[in-house]
């Protein structure tokens, strides 16, 4: 009996990551645990810091585009697009209409690919392995489409200042339209596996709630913000390319829990499919690129053009002093801002929930660390 009285419990630290199957890259979470319950968390980032902002100060504008692929490597097109839009805004270059359509088609296909990876890895985080493979099956087809045009499957380096690198082929347009037709049924398939599954609901409903005011205060963007009930989307609020000519919905959640973040992204996939369909049918003939000098010297000044990436607002804050290289290039990435709230959200949840909550954050460490 005396021994039992001397028994005491204590909190301990668990270093989750940077090598861990569910931190989606090299994120390290230092968890303070009381048994299985998280009482404190400190995220530790920077393992993938490559100093892209410093490198950019020593490169010509066109040389920076490949670096933007390496930010959010799951949706390189958004990074490409945000950068070229920023430079075009500063230099006053208008791309031809066909290029604008192509940009939207590519960006939305890339959003589908990115959301598919997210859905797959999220279900994997919850222990359901099969949806992961289903998602990768469709993503594979999107990557095939990209490979047909850009020659690569992950880092496309496709957007150019004043247009895009290559025109869409007739084969691409045919295949992409067929894919979108097929894809609508596939989304229903993923939903059949997860949306109403009682275990899935138990793991996600009312788990990791982010209230709307918190979401705004911490600068969340993208599906994270919309799941909390704030319908804000740069594609509609600050229309770029041809988004003002297309009709699409902005799905939003109500509670801001894991399930809402899941539902928002799944509905976004349907909307993206709709956008690609419209853009493909409206694709005008014409040139896909305007002539821009290789060593572009935009006027001195600054510009910022927000783009809605699959994770939220990605934007480049560009300061130019009139030379061929940027004076300063700040990269505002959605994952960085979205992740900053994590220690407040996971407090009080269990280790298993940390994995689920982090899964719905959909972070890409490439753009957090830059």
């Amino acid at each position, binding site marked *: 009996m005396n021994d039992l009285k001397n028994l005491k419990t204590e909190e301990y630290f668990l270093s989750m990551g940077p090598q861990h199957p569910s931190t989606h890259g090299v994120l390290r979470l230092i968890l303070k645990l009381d048994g299985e319950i998280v009482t404190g968390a400190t995220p530790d*980032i*920077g393992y993938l*810091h490559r*100093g892209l*902002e*410093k490198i950019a100060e020593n490169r010509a504008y066109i040389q920076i585009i490949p670096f933007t692929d390496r930010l959010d490597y799951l949706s390189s097109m958004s990074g490409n697009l945000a950068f070229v839009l920023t430079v075009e805004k500063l230099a006053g270059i208008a791309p031809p209409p066909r290029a604008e359509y192509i940009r939207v088609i590519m960006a939305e296909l890339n959003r589908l690919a990115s959301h598919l990876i997210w859905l797959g890895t999220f279900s994997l985080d919850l222990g359901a392995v099969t949806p992961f493979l289903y998602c990768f099956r469709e993503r594979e087809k999107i990557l095939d489409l990209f490979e047909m045009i850009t020659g690569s499957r992950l880092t496309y380096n496709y957007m150019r200042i004043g247009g895009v690198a290559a025109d869409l082929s007739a084969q691409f347009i045919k295949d992409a339209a067929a894919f979108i037709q097929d894809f609508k049924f596939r989304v229903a398939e993923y939903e059949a596996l997860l949306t109403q599954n009682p275990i899935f609901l138990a793991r996600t409903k009312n788990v990791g709630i982010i209230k709307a005011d918190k979401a*705004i*205060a*911490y*600068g969340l963007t993208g599906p994270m913000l919309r799941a909390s009930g*704030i319908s*804000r989307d740069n594609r509609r*609020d*600050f229309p770029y390319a041809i988004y003002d000519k297309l009709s699409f919905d902005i799905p939003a959640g109500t509670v801001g829990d894991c399930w809402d973040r899941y539902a928002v992204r799944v509905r976004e996939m349907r909307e993206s499919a709709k956008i690609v369909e419209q853009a493909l049918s409206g694709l005008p003939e014409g040139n896909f690129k305007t002539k821009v000098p290789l060593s572009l010297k935009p006027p001195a000044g600054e510009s*910022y053009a*927000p783009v809605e990436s699959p994770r939220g*607002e990605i*934007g480049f*804050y560009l*300061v130019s002093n009139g030379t061929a290289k940027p*004076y*300063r290039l*700040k990269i*505002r990435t959605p994952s*960085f*801002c979205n992740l*900053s709230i994590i220690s407040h959200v996971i407090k009080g949840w269990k280790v298993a929930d940390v994995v689920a909550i982090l899964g719905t954050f959909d972070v890409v460490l490439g753009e957090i*660390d*830059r």
Partner: protein
Amino acid sequence: MTEEKKISREELLATGENIKAQYNFLVFITAVDYPERNVIGMVYHLRSLGNRDTLIIKIDLPREKPEIASVAGIWPAAEWHEREVFDLFGVNFLGHPDLRRILLPPDWEGSPLRKDYTKPGVIKRPETIK
């Protein structure tokens, strides 16, 4: 609509309190180094989620001793952005809840995004590796 405002560093907190009801969304905070003017220029990019207006606040800080009040109490999102500026520019944010390096290792020397930063000769191994 985009508005730009240049203020002094003493005015920052008061301005922030005044405008936080309208400009409720902090997009980012960053800095730009201007060695020829001997200034580090802070840039606060704010947005109103209501009417989508943008406000850019600019503040010049002396390069030798860049210090400014932290706005993490007004916009919690500033916490990480300020840590990043501290990390890469060496700007000191007074009243910041947790001012540590964020991207670079804790024992890094210098502020890499300043224009006069030269690349380190030998990069030290972290002490934890023996």
